[in-house]
C-alpha cells in the first residue's frame, strides 16, 4: 500500500505544477488587495475599478496586440499574506506589473517583494509616504498623507473653526500613525491644540478607556485616521457614551460598510478622499461613473476610482514602453505626465507620487455627500 500512495502524491504534485505553468499567455497583470476580512470593502471596490478598466482595454484590442489577463489575490488585510500574494503573482503567474494594496502597511510588505524582483508596482490608494520610498519600482496614483493631514487640519480649523481636537489612531497601521502625525502638525500650526492622543490596535472592539480619557478633555472633534471597521465601532461606542462633537477622518473611512448597520452614529461627520461621484465633472470621470453604475449597480467609491486609474496608468506605461521588459516599463511609468484618469490629471513626481486634489465628504444616513474640493 505504501509505495503507490506516495507515488500518487508525487504524481498529483507534478500535475499541479504542470498545470500552473501551462496557462501563461498574453500579458499578465497582478492585483493584491483585501477582498475579505475587516477591510474587505477596500479590495472589493478596488478590484471592481481595475476590472472595469481591464474589460474596456481588452474590448479595444488589449495591449501590444495581446490580451491582458488579471490575476487577483486576496490579502485578507494581513501583511504576511500580502507578501506571499505578491510573490505568487510574480513567480507563479508571471505578472509583469502589480496593482495594490490599499492599506499602506500591506503595500509596504508587497512593495518590498516587487522592488526585490524589479517588477513595477502601482498602488491605487496607499497614502503613507514610506510606500514609494521602498524603491524606484513603486508608484502610486493617489495623494500622500502629509497633504491629506493638511487638508483635514485646515478644514477643521478654518471651515469648522475648531480649536480643540483629540486624536485616536490605530498604532499598528503605518497609514494611521502617519496621518495622525500629519494632522497634528498642520492643526497645531494653525493655532489649534491637540487635547489628547490615544491609540488602539486593529481588531480591537473595546474603546471605552480611550474614549473616557478623550472625553474628559471635552474636545470639539475626534480625528480618527483609521479603517472603517474600527471607525464605525469607535463612533458607536462614543455616541453611546454621550459624545456630541464631530468625528473627522481620512480615506480609510471609505467603505460602504461605514454606514450600513444600525444607526446614525457618524451622520454629519467628515473625511477626506481622492474622488467623489458628485464632483466627477471631466468626461473621463463621468464616463467611468456611468460604466461603473451600469456594471455594478452602485456608485463607485474613491477606492474604485483609484483602482481604475491605477490600472489605466499601468496599461499606459506598458503601451508607451512598447514592451513587457521590466526596466522599460519602470522608466515609462516614471515619466507619466498629465495622464487624464477618473480622479483627475495624474503626474508622477520624482518621488513616484501623484500630486492631486482631495475632496471632503460628509457622511449621510445612506452614503457620502460631496462637500468641497481642496487643490494642492
Amino acid at each position, binding site marked *: 500500500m505504501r509505495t503507490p500512495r506516495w507515488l500518487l502524491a508525487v504524481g498529483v504534485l507534478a500535475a499541479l505544477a504542470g498545470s500552473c505553468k501551462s496557462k501563461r499567455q498574453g500579458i499578465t497583470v497582478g492585483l493584491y488587495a483585501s477582498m475579505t476580512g475587516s477591510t474587505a470593502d477596500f479590495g472589493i471596490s478596488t478590484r471592481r475599478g481595475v476590472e472595469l478598466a481591464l474589460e474596456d482595454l481588452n474590448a479595444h484590442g488589449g495591449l501590444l496586440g495581446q490580451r491582458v489577463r488579471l490575476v487577483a489575490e486576496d490579502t485578507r488585510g494581513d501583511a504576511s499574506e500580502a507578501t506571499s500574494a505578491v510573490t505568487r503573482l510574480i513567480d507563479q503567474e508571471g505578472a509583469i506589473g502589480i496593482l495594490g494594496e490599499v492599506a499602506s502597511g500591506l503595500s509596504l510588505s508587497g512593495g518590498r517583494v516587487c522592488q526585490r524582483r524589479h517588477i513595477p508596482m502601482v498602488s491605487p490608494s496607499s497614502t503613507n509616504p514610506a510606500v514609494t520610498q521602498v524603491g524606484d519600482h513603486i508608484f502610486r496614483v493617489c495623494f500622500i498623507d502629509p497633504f491629506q493631514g493638511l487638508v483635514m487640519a485646515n478644514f477643521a480649523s478654518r471651515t469648522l473653526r475648531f480649536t480643540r481636537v483629540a486624536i485616536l489612531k490605530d498604532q499598528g497601521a503605518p497609514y494611521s500613525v502617519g496621518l495622525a502625525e500629519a494632522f497634528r502638525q498642520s492643526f497645531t500650526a494653525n493655532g489649534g491644540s491637540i487635547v489628547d492622543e490615544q491609540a488602539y490596535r486593529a481588531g480591537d*472592539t473595546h474603546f*471605552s478607556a*480611550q474614549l473616557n*480619557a478623550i472625553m474628559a478633555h471635552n474636545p470639539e472633534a475626534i480625528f480618527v485616521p483609521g479603517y472603517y471597521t474600527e471607525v464605525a465601532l469607535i463612533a458607536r461606542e462614543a455616541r453611546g457614551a454621550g459624545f456630541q462633537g464631530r468625528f473627522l477622518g481620512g480615506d480609510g473611512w471609505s467603505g460602504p460598510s461605514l454606514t450600513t448597520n444600525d444607526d446614525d452614529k457618524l451622520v454629519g461627520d467628515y473625511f477626506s478622499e481622492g474622488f467623489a461621484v458628485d464632483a466627477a465633472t471631466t468626461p473621463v470621470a463621468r464616463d467611468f461613473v456611468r460604466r461603473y453604475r451600469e456594471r455594478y449597480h452602485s456608485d463607485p467609491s474613491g477606492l474604485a476610482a483609484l483602482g481604475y486609474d491605477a490600472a489605466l496608468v499601468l496599461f499606459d506605461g506598458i503601451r508607451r514602453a512598447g514592451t513587457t521588459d521590466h526596466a522599460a516599463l519602470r522608466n515609462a511609468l516614471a515619466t507619466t505626465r498629465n495622464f487624464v484618469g477618473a480622479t483627475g490629471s495624474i503626474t508622477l513626481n520624482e518621488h513616484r507620487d501623484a500630486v492631486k486634489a482631495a475632496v471632503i465628504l460628509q457622511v449621510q444616513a445612506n452614503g457620502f455627500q460631496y462637500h468641497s474640493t481642496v487643490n494642492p
Partner: protein
Amino acid sequence: MTAPRAAPPGPKVAAAALGLLALWPLYRVALGAWRDWVGFLRNVLEGVSLGGVYALIALGYTMVYGVLGLINFAHSDVFMVGAYVGIFTAGFFGITASSQAGSSVAVTVACVAAAMVVCALLGMTLERLAYRPVRNAPKLTPLVTAIGVSMLLQNVAMLVFKSTPRGFPPTLRTASVHLGPVATTNIKLLDLGAAVALMVALTLLVQKTRVGRAMRAISTNLEAARLMGVPTDRVIAVTFGLGSALAGAGGILFGLDQPRIDPLTGVQPGLKAFVAAVLGGIGNIPGAMLGGLVIGLVEQLSAAYLSSSFAPAIVFAILVVVLLVRPQGLLGRVTREKV
C-alpha cells in the same frame, strides 16, 4: 538604578525592582481617580465587565489544564464559534445584524443556550478526535496538536463564515443605566451578572456533584482515579464540554457588548484569558475567575490612565512580575513535579 552589582541579581531582586516600577502606574491611576472619581468608577465597572468575559474563557483553559495538564489553544476559537452560533440562532428567529434593536430576552436566552450546546459538542468532538489519541504521547505532542486544532478552526471558520466581519444581532436594546453617578449600559451589567452566575454554577458543580468530584480526582492523579473506578474518558469529555460551553456563553456576552465578529475574534480575548488563567494559577478555578477580573481591570485602567499604546504590554508585564514573585500564580498551589 542602584541595584547591587556584585552578585548576579536573583529573581527576588528583579521582582523588587519591578515592584518599585509598579508604584508609578499606581500613582497615575490614583491621580486619575482623584481628579475624576466618577470616570474612575466607570472605568472600574467597564474593566470588571470585560474581566467577567475573560474569566469565563479562562475557566475553560484552567479546567482542561487541571485534568489533563494540556493547554487547549483551540479554546479561544471555540469562543469564536459560540459568537457565530449566536448570530445564526438570532437569524433563525428573524433578528439580523441590520435589524432594529429589539428587546427579546427569549431570543437572547436561546442564543446563549444554543451557543453553549454547540460549543460543548464541539469541545467534546475535539477532545475525542484530536486530543484523546495523543493523550499519552510526550507533553509537547498534545500542545502542538492544540495549536494545530486552533488554526484548523480559524481557517474552517474563514471558509464557512467568510472573514468579513459580521455584526452581532441586537437581540437586546442597549439602555443607559445609572448606578448612582456612574453611567453604564444594561448590557455591561448583564454581562457581569451572567458571568458571575455561570461561575457560581460551575463552582457548585465541581464541588458538590459526583462528576465534579471525579474531575477533582482526575486532576489529582489520573491513573489512580481510573484504578479507583472513575470513568476517566467520560469525565474528561465532560470537562471539555463544560469549559467549551462556558466559552460559548462568553462568545454571546462578548457579541452583545462588542457587536462585530470575525473568524479571528477569539484570538485576542483568548490570549488574555490564557494570561488570566496563568495569573490566577493554572488548574485552579477560583484563580481563573480572579485572574480574569484582574486582567480586565488592569487592561482598562492602564489604557485609561497610563497609555492606550502600551495597555497590552502592561498586562503582560504584570503577568511577568506576578510569576516572578509567585510562580504558581495568585491562588495556585505549589506542586512538586511528579517524575
